[in-house]
């Protein structure tokens, strides 16, 4: 039942909003993973980021896609928790509790899932990229054969930035880069990821948002 609801949510509602009301300008779409296990890494500006990224993948992959998200934000209330876990389909990570926070995502990758990660941690200031956190490198170190696809997005932080509930349509630019693989060193990996994201960001020319 919830699987059907999730499918309907992504197949009808999200696609309608994303394709008709917002509109996408995508480059490098064929760089997206065609199957799991894989990791998609993107910059984070808005709650819409996850929905747009998932709408880029074919619906047949939907059961295998899981955005990684923090327990403390998404599991705050009962209703939000149900929505996040069943409809959005997040893989919850507990930032506060002890134990290995990488265990769940590693297990998911072993099961052939496609994980969506936002290494900036939070949505932050709209349309400004914050420092990338190393968690993604630690995860890739444990699963070194999994490809990591960098995606840069612009526009969603204007449509629905942090701290507002009013949605305003803007065309969303999405630039998908070539997949990175593990290089044996987490600092070098993070440097390459950062360079790749910066290069993708330079592909577009974005009007200022003051």
């Amino acid at each position, binding site marked *: 039942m919830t699987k059907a609801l999730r499918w309907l949510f992504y197949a009808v509602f999200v696609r309608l909003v994303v394709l008709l009301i917002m509109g996408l300008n995508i480059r490098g779409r064929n760089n997206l993973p065609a199957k799991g296990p894989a990791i998609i890494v993107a910059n984070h500006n808005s709650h819409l980021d996850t929905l747009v990224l998932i709408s880029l993948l074919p619906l047949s992959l939907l059961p295998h896609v899981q955005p990684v998200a923090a327990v403390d934000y998404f599991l705050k209330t009962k209703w939000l928790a149900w929505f996040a876990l069943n409809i959005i389909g997040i893989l919850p990570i507990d930032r506060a509790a002890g134990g290995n926070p990488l265990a769940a995502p590693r297990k998911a990758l072993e099961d052939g899932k496609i994980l969506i990660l936002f290494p900036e941690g939070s949505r932050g200031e709209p349309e400004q990229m914050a420092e990338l956190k190393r968690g993604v490198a630690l995860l890739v170190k444990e699963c070194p054969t999994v490809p990591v696809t960098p995606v840069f997005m612009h526009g969603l932080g204007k449509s629905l*930035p942090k701290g507002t509930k*009013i949605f305003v349509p*803007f*065309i969303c630019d999405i630039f998908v880069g070539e997949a990175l693989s593990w290089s044996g060193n987490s600092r070098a990996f993070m440097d390459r990821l950062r360079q790749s994201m910066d290069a993708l960001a330079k592909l577009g*020319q974005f*009007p200022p948002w*003051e």
Partner: protein
Amino acid sequence: MIELLAAKTGIAPPVMWALGGTYAILAIASAITWLLHVRSGGGHGELVARVKSWWIMVTVFAAAVFVYEPLSAAFLGLISYLALKEYISMIPTRRIDRLVLLAAYLAVPVQFWLAYQAQFGHFMVFIPVWMFLLMPAVMAMSGETVGYLKSVGTLSWGLMMTVFTLSHMAYLLFSGDAANPVAGGAGLLFFLVFVAQFNDVAQYTWGKLFGRHKITPAVSPKKTWEGFLGGVFTSIALAAVIGPFLTPMDAGWSALAGGIIAGAGFLGDITESAVKRDLGVKDAGALIPGHGGILDRIDSLTYAAPVFTHFFRYFYFP
């Protein structure tokens, strides 16, 4: 067969004939580009994509606009919405103006609903008076004065150019049989859109073949006097032939209307070029393969639609 199709779809027979003629022209254009494509060993990719997009645009436009009136209003409104969205996405905006941007979007359904209801008095004042006064007032109330004038200017102009001017297409369509006993509102709209779009292609083609003297090298370096005049005369000839079948105008008045549409279309084209050049972007979007965004395809109509409408209204409305 054309008559039968017209009866089945409810499209006025003259419009159906004109539509048939459009497809005949497209078939010829496809044959020529295919020949060029084969002879050059697979070249002219953009031209092939363009002609292919024309087939889709003509079909979607005809099906959405000429068959069922509520759908026509919604479809013409959608065109304005997409154009406004392309515009807002490419200009600098202020975060504090999010509500005003939302109000600008909401003006689209109101404007096209007024056209659909044939409330043409309200239609003419809603954006140039009410939205024009409302948006700067809301921005002032928000209390941020840095960049105020620039925001007021860009947004007011954008709403006029993408919604008010283009909504004149709906005005023509819903003026109906009273304004045009020959082929109804659909005939007027078809005449305008066909001449304006054909003029774009004609200016481009004449310019490609004979263009030498540039008109506005700083704004639109590909525009030449040869292309412009060739386009104007082609449009005049085309309008003189199809005008008497689609509108109450005789050949002479149709020719004049054709010249006006071509001239206005040129102005619409270069104003959008000036905006893009100012912002440093090449295309307003990427919706239509080979053409760019929707604004790149219909920029000529931002001038041609209101100018032709008011020309026709002055001389021909009952």
